């Protein structure tokens, strides 16, 4: 184990290196690019004996990974924003083909207007594709989660692709000390990919194929069942990671000071760190508030969310993207999960940090105050309400 000062992007690159990926394919896009630049360095120096396929689009990048995985290679790619949207067709293809690809997603706003700030619209619009989705809070968590994602994605009872998402700039371009495990330790956590249902030269086999409604539904059901097996396998994977590498990030929905809380805020990614400090301040003032970090978004940690309802009467969800005509996607999911809970706390959606706006302690405090007030739950476009929209100067 050595400590390095790494950006979130380089944490992705080092994790892919330690995972001994065999095929990397990518297309440049801000703010993802430095992930694959670093991987290109690793490949050029021979540190990573992999094939790096430099493609002419993100659509091709993911196709390269799908086809390489179909022949048995461990594959990695990374992208952001428009790039992920262009991949969308192949995002479905990767899960339907059961290819255990791991993809770094640097969450960035979607145009127009052009904006390169942190925003979850890109990966949220891939919600229904059959990919496992993690959202990381720190660069350390990025590195650890990428390694865990490979183990999870390749697990015989899962065999699904996984995205490890990190907020643009707050993680991608901010450096912090990261413990980088040594290769031998990672090797004992993550063995080489087991070949299963891959093409073999000289053998008749078809991967993909076409079916009528009879078999088609079987294939969809298999993806659905594999996804539902993820929570249990992830628990094992994270326990193994802790045993071998010595760190855990607390599962799918780690909580903070939720005991006896009247109001709990659910956050994703980097907003969590700020919110945690605000929880400490409010607790010091005697306010009963807590925090839950939505680390695993697909499959959705339904049971863990229901447990939040044990004490809290009010649950806020800080969403970094919006489902037009509804509310934030995380808030939608939390509400749905609570419907079958024994208690029904009110759920309020706070749209915070859209397009790279800072989620400040001041703002998080305001979120908690809104939650603790008797205001009817609704969707708050927090930034706009606080600062006002300036029209015509």
């Amino acid at each position, binding site marked *: 184990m050595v400590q390095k000062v790494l950006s979130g992007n380089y944490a992705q690159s080092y994790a892919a290196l330690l995972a001994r990926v*065999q*095929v990397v*394919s990518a297309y440049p896009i801000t703010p993802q690019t430095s992930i694959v630049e670093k991987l290109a360095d690793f490949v050029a120096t021979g540190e990573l004996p*992999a*094939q790096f*396929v*430099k*493609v*002419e*689009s993100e*659509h*091709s*990048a993911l*196709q*390269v*990974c*799908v*086809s*390489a*995985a*179909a*022949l*048995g*290679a461990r*594959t990695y790619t990374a992208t952001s924003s428009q790039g992920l949207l262009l991949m969308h*067709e*192949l995002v479905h*293809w990767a899960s339907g083909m059961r290819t255990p690809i791991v993809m770094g997603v640097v969450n960035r706003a979607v145009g127009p207007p052009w904006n390169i700030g942190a925003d979850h619209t890109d990966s949220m619009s891939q919600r229904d594709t059959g990919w496992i989705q993690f959202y990381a809070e720190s660069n350390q968590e990025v590195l650890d989660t990428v390694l865990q994602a490979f183990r999870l994605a390749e697990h015989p009872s899962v065999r699904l692709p996984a995205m490890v998402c990190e907020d643009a700039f707050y993680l991608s371009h901010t450096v912090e000390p990261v413990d980088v495990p040594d290769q031998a330790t990672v090797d004992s956590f993550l063995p080489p990919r087991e070949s299963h249902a891959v*093409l*073999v*030269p*000289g*053998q*008749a*086999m*078809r*991967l*993909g*194929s*076409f*079916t*009528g409604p009879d*078999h088609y539904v079987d294939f969809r059901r298999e993806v659905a069942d594999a996804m539902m097996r993820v929570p249990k396998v992830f628990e094992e994977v994270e326990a193994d990671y802790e045993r071998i590498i010595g760190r855990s990030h607390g599962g799918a929905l780690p909580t903070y000071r939720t005991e006896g809380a009247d109001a709990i805020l659910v956050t994703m990614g980097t907003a969590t760190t700020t919110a945690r400090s605000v929880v400490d301040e409010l607790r010091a003032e005697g306010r009963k508030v807590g925090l839950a970090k939505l680390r695993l978004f697909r499959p959705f940690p339904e049971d863990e969310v229901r447990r939040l309802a044990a004490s809290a009467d009010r649950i806020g969800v800080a969403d970094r993207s919006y489902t037009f005509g509804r509310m934030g996607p995380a808030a939608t999911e939390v509400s749905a999960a609570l419907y079958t809970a024994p208690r029904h706390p009110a759920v309020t959606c706070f749209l915070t940090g859209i397009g790279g706006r800072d989620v400040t302690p001041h703002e998080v405090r305001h979120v908690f105050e809104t939650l603790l007030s008797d205001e009817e739950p609704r969707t708050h476009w927090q930034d706009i309400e606080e600062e006002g929209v300036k029209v015509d100067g």
Partner: protein
Amino acid sequence: MAKLTIPSQELMYAGHSACPGCGPALSMRLLLKGLGPRTIVSVPACCWTVIDTPYPTTALRVGFLDNPIEATGASLSGLRAAADALGMKDVNIVGFAGDGGTVDIGLQALSGMLERRTNAIYVMYDNEAYMNTGIQRSGATPWGAWTTTTPISGGLHGKPEPKKDIMAIVLAHHPAYAATINPSFPEDFDRKVERARDIVGPRFFHLFTPCPPGWKFDSAQTIALGRLATDTGLFPLYEVVDGQLHITRKTGQLKPVAEYLAAQGRFRHLTPADVEQIQVQVRSDWQRLLQREREDLSLPH
């Protein structure tokens, strides 16, 4: 009796679901004879998606990977990268894509694969329209042809634009090998496939594949029609190795294109003036091809 030069091995089962007289079905059989069993074929959405038969069966004795319609070039790069990374030797990585999936929606991925010098064979089987979806025009549909989206009505007279020249586009990428092939000439077809098989680098075939239901002709006439396409000069047979072009079939005098056009319902509406316009174009294209061959031969090699 002369000894057949076509390999006897069969890597395609008789049980497939192609239409009678299907050019692409015949061509896959010939292609695999030349390539052998250590072949993986990547196939986009096209007629062959269906011809290979639905899950859980397959019509081929080699590996078959489905890919979305526009991504064949990228799929070949991924397969080759994995084969290299995993130390798999002597594997033919082959794309088998339709004309729409190549000259229209798949052109970017093809260009990327050629530019990256992916060590693979890309075969574009050209039945000159989107046949699998019911005969819609593609960039490879020839001038004047009827399709369901270039109807003969309301002043329309078949496809108003000429066919896209995919070989010129491919040759601009300087592939290791490129050739035109036609299943009506199986010896020429097989010789080129075996030659391409042993070359390293990006290789491309423009494969001519008559389509009885799409072109409206008797399915018993596929081979005869294919011979006419080449012998009228509409689909000349040639190969380009290291940039040098060589015509592999010359018959002294070209047959009139009217013979080829009259054999197909999709050209039935053409007037004598239309036919003459096509004839003039074909003659000029053929002269240009002969000129290119002469120039290439005169260059230091």
